[in-house]
């Protein structure tokens, strides 16, 4: 579904990604982790073309992201993305947040889009909040709305960039529960997260990054059981003592 091959990216002289390659097959859940500044966000944003890259190739459902002829908005409309800071549109009601892209991008009718949005809102347990504005919801609630907003586009896969790291601890689980459910339904997911409990539960593989490189790309049992690199070992030790 997602294929990343030998991707490198630099900002001027600063190398952010070096020769990164990995795959996410249909129905798989991949967790990407690594220290701050290792290039996780950059890599995941390359997948839907929010960040350009200089060499290598990425294809999503067979479509090349780096190809200048690719209709990027169209491709992005088929790839859901959830951000660390939710990024709901604060000037729109929750209902409008859920329907605006369905209407303006997919050309759905207003009633159809609203219905679909409300169904997904119900699914993430927030039906009662349809007429509120994002600023009136807690962080965890906003993030669940953001997931529903992405799902409303009927995505073929979902990208998550640290969806719980801006949340108070007591709200993390309500978001992870939604993500676990999504994974169990067979959604293809690429998740940057440090929630190792989530990784253990649903991930097929773990990708560990450091200094712009993919240092490990392993199934979860070998990653947690016996990480090959020293850096991954240190990282795990640090994260698990937290």
């Amino acid at each position, binding site marked *: 579904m997602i294929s990343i091959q030998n991707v490198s990216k630099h900002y001027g002289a600063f190398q952010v990604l070096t020769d990164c390659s990995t795959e996410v097959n249909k129905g798989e859940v991949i967790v990407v982790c690594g220290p701050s500044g290792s290039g996780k966000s950059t890599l995941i944003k390359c997948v839907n073309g929010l960040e350009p890259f200089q060499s290598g190739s990425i294809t999503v459902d067979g479509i090349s992201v780096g190809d200048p002829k690719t209709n990027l*908005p169209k491709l992005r409309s088929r790839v859901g993305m959830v*951000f660390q800071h939710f990024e709901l*549109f604060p000037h729109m009601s929750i209902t409008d947040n859920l329907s*605006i892209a369905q209407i303006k*991008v997919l050309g759905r009718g207003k009633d159809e889009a609203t219905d679909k949005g409300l169904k997904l809102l119900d699914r993430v347990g927030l039906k009662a909040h349809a007429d509120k504005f994002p600023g009136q919801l807690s962080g965890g609630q906003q993030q669940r709305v953001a997931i529903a907003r992405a799902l409303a586009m009927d995505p073929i896969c979902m990208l998550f960039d640290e969806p719980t790291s801006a949340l108070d601890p007591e709200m993390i689980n309500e978001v992870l529960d939604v993500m676990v459910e999504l994974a169990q339904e067979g959604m293809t997911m690429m998740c940057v997260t440090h929630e190792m409990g989530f990784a253990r539960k649903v991930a097929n593989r773990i990708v560990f990054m450091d200094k712009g490189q993919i240092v490990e790309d392993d199934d979860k049992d070998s990653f947690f059981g016996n990480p090959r690199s020293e850096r991954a070992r240190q990282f795990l030790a640090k994260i698990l003592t937290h």
Partner: protein
Amino acid sequence: MYEFDWSSIPGALPFLWEGMKVSLEITACAVLFGIAWGTLLAMARLSSIKPLAWLAASYVNLFRAIPLVMVLLWFFLIVPQVLRGVFKLDAGTDVRLASALVGFALFEAAYYSEIIRAGIQSVPKGQISAASALGMSYAQAMRLVVLPQAFRNMVPLLLTQAIVLFQDTSLVYVSALADFFGAAYKVGDRDGRLVELLLFAGAVYFVICFAASQAVRRYQKKLNAHVAH
């Protein structure tokens, strides 16, 4: 001791009101056009197309470095001739109002574009990313997501600029137009009561602008309270 004599004002009120209408007309027109053109300029300045950004920056810097009264004079001298040439108007058609409007609007757009540029930049970058990630084009992201938030944040500044602009309309007297200030001057000149008329005009400007500023302030307080919530 100077003897004030206000007796020429009541009879002149209808004439002064006509002048006020001209002032308000110029203000409204310059605000609307200034915001529209200013928005385009601001987007051009923030564009990644370098020549476009450069042109917009030059425009803004040029108009901000020239006194308004000179712009108005140029437009008083040039625009009427151009209009006459283009539309084959006969020499009698009064195009001074149009010329004052055009000059004003072009000038104010430079100031509005700076306010709007700051407003656009005040919207977090993540909002564009989120809009793009949903499949919106750059234009859609701007129109549906960034600009509405930018304008909501900017309303107080835009209104404050409109108040400044309303005061600036008095400068159209250089084109011998009977705006409110021009009308007051004419009446005062005719009756030999210039001091009284100009004091009266000043008081009217003060009352209008002060009341408007207070209203903007109240609105801003409400807005801040809403954002904090």
